[in-house]
């Protein structure tokens, strides 16, 4: 049995993280998404540096189920959001946003972003007072040099 703490998407959710003194080639960003009964609509993950859009991609519940090779309507997974063009992450503050179009939250069908308190990629800028304030879970994958 897995217990998840999911923040439902109403209009927008966002998570802020910092890079400092490094340069990375971005492989993907992977938010930890909970799908409850395959809601209709198109969901968009956007990466901003400051106020500048770095890249964004969309997905639907149908595409998510296809990627998971399942017909089930309930799932929790780190969704890899892969940029179409090469992206270099440099020092600065980044924001990942989850938004939607053609989607309406309901208790019976929604998309959520899962909160975790033990996530190596989450740099906290505040002190969470309870689990509801844990950061929205996110994995950031970068390219490294091939093993020589």
């Amino acid at each position, binding site marked *: *049995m897995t*217990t*998840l703490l*999911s*923040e439902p998407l109403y209009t927008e959710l966002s998570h802020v993280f910092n890079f400092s003194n490094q340069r990375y080639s971005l492989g993907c960003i992977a938010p930890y998404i909970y799908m409850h009964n395959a809601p209709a609509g198109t969901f968009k993950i956007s990466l901003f540096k400051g106020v500048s859009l770095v890249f964004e991609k969309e997905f639907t519940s149908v595409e998510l189920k296809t990627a*998971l090779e399942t017909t089930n*309507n309930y*799932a*929790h*997974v780190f969704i890899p959001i892969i940029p179409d063009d090469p992206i270099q992450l440099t020092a600065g503050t980044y924001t990942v946003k989850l938004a939607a179009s053609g989607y309406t939250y309901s208790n019976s069908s929604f998309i959520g972003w899962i909160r975790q308190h033990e996530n190596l990629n989450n740099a906290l800028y505040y002190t969470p007072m309870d689990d509801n304030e844990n950061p929205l879970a996110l994995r950031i994958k970068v390219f490294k040099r091939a093993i020589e």
Partner: protein
Amino acid sequence: MTRIVSFADGFTSASVPNVSGGDQEPYTLDNNDTGTILTLNPSLYKTIFYSFELTRKGAVTYVQAGSMTLSYNGSWELTFGAFQGSPIIQDTILNTQDVVISVSGNDLVFECGNLSSHVESTLKLYAVRIIA
């Protein structure tokens, strides 16, 4: 507002996981609202944390607030030192009998008297719906 999802082993499920958590739904009762204002169906509300805020305008401007817990277990059970059908809120509002909470059948009912005597007062009710 976060949801607690109890998911069976694995990353996908054909059946509905157990989901609990709350939705906050505000309701505003205005001066001229009278009679039955709000009815809460127990099929949607198992437990509600209900808070209220009364703002009066005019010569006297202040905010009064309070909260209580109501749970449904076949019938609505009012906690916080109150009884079913008792005008709970009136104890914190001057010029009583403004808002009454009662049970009609299986539904929890909020009834409002005329607030106009209190000079442009509005009462906000926040019902937090607990799903599970």
